[in-house]
């Protein structure tokens, strides 16, 4: 089912980045297989997603939760967005059951086989059409593809700042158009401030996602979700789907199992065993 652009939506498209008191957060989610046994199409080397139950990418549930918390704190609304095959609409409805207010579904044959660049392009086009927003939330990566590239790619396409691996939103100033976050990095935490609108990718330690509510389920049942194809987002066909993807998956394979072995260090006392272990580690130049 396709929905035509409404008059107010067109008005909002031309009013991007205006100052508003209420928050508008957009959350990009991905429908992923609920299994570790992902199967691949050997011809295209892309994921075969038709045969297993799908779920919202677990990292994206933290993105949804963070958006909902900001909405509760500041007022406003949360729009959830996904691109995927027809059955991925289920994941949008689940996001609505958690409390998202609106949902947009990007689903068309021409989007099939998109790599991370084409996906980011397609999502960015859709976000342009959605109109004014303050923050875009993404999970730090999807648990099937594991690239972590789509969020930053969307920010790049939209030419807005990106804050990746966000662990905490410290401050948000919708009037002054700024946001300050803590990023969780390998070396520690980093506090960063930037202007709004911005795109955030979040890590799982940021919050504990809520359960869907019955009110949310009732809303999800009745919500009409617009389905957008290439025409609705005014996308350039050469940037879409498999043909629009600059990367090609040549081969997907399970890495060979690492061979390991165990050696027990004997000794008369804990100190003696620790000495032997230290000598061994130094000898093998591990430390």
């Amino acid at each position: 089912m396709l929905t035509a652009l409404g008059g107010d939506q067109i008005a909002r498209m031309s009013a991007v980045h205006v100052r508003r008191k209420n928050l508008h957060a957009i959350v990009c989610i991905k429908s992923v297989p609920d299994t570790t046994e992902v199967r691949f199409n050997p011809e295209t080397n892309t994921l075969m997603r038709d045969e297993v139950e799908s779920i919202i990418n677990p990292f994206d549930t933290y993105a949804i939760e963070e958006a909902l918390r900001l909405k509760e704190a500041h007022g406003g609304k949360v729009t959830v967005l996904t691109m995927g095959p027809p059955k991925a609409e289920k994941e949008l409805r689940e996001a609505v059951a958690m409390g998202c207010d609106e949902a947009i579904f990007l689903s068309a044959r021409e989007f099939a086989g998109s790599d991370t660049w084409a996906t980011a392009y397609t999502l960015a086009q859709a976000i342009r059409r959605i109109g004014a927003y303050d923050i875009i939330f993404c999970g730090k990566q999807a648990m099937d593809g594991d690239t972590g590239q789509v969020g930053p790619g969307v920010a790049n396409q939209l030419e807005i700042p990106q804050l990746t691996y966000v662990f905490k939103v410290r401050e948000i100033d919708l009037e002054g158009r700024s946001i300050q976050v803590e990023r969780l990095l390998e070396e520690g935490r980093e506090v960063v401030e930037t202007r709004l609108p911005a795109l955030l990718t979040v890590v799982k330690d940021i919050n504990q996602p809520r359960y869907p509510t019955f009110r949310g389920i009732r809303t999800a049942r009745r919500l009409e979700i617009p389905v957008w194809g290439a025409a609705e987002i005014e996308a350039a066909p050469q940037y879409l789907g498999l043909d629009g993807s600059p990367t090609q998956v040549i081969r997907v394979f399970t890495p060979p199992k690492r061979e390991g072995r165990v050696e027990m260090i004997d000794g008369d006392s804990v100190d003696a065993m620790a000495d032997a272990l230290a000598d061994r580690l130094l000898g093998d130049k591990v430390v």
Partner: protein
Amino acid sequence: MDLHYTPEHEMVRKMVRDFAEQEIAPTIKEHDREQSFDRGLLNKMAEQGLLGICLPVKYGGAGMDYIALGIACEELERVDTSARVILSVHVGLNSMTLLQWATEEQKERYLVPQAMGERIATYGLTEPNAGSDVAGLQTTARRDGDRYILNGEKMWISLADVADQFLIFAYTDKAAKHRGISAFIVEREFPGVETGTIHGKLGVRAGNSGSISLQDVAVPVANRLGEEGEGFKIAMSALDNGRYTVAWGSVGLIRACIEASVRYANERHTFGVPIGEHQLVQQMIAQMVQRRDIGELLCLKAGWLKNEGRRNTRETSMAKWYCCDAAFDSAADAVQVHGAYGYSDEYDVERYLRNSKGAVIYEGSREIHTIMQAQYALGYREDRPLRCEMPAYDLDEWEAEA
């Protein structure tokens, strides 16, 4: 005919599964060992809206259908029976009975806070000397002006210590036998109400069971549910809903047995192969799967009849009878699959076995259901229309705001 669960059913299943795995599973062994009831869990179930799951939104409920209630029971009992029991008594035996029989005033006063989880409710039929033999009740209600004076003792009442309001059955006319029983909504705050806890149960040790003592408890006439003498019919109609939740829960327990047994059968090796490759282990697992599938179909049939607003006493009895026996047999097999480890509380299956026995006894023992089915087949029993029937599920009506 359509046996598909709706997307809403699937969302309810996922919600309750996640809830049970995160809120119940981590601490259940501790509560079971210590025979302690987790009041915090009850509060979380209330917050989540589970305590009004299949009640209309205008009465404070969640607006789901009767199959959603079943799914929630299945998912709760998949983790532990004690959590499902909460839905059985609060929703099945009490709140749904108010939905069916209560006046609008009674619904406003008692059903709404129950559906919202603000007040907890239970059902008081069983007595020390009256279980299957309901007419053997000894509790009495004597009319005294605009009130009744209740005296008696209730036993084996789930949530007895926790509930704020009780549906109590008592004789208003002992000579009229079962036609002399009436039903009353009794608040814990009424003077003369006391409750006690039962410890030392074989199973459902994380659940609260107890006794209710009523000594000269004055209950306003406005708190009588239904007409005088209508209590037996009300009690039996409540069981149509309570038994339904028990049946669904048992399917969840069978599911837990299958999951545990399959996992263990793939891990444990004997004679050089995983035990799942032994045919006699396969037989036990196959039978569990068979019981789960049959049980689910019987429950769905009963749920469909409820959604349609059609009488389902026979079908619900069949589902309850079959599923509870099937859960007990499956739990016994699950312990067997686990061998000596299954006999220890290191694994969950011993708890499943202990938990499954109660349901073969309560809400109509296996023997009562056997006799009921025989009586239906022989033509000795038929269900007549009730003055107040359980309303059919109507999506628009259930979701309408007050």
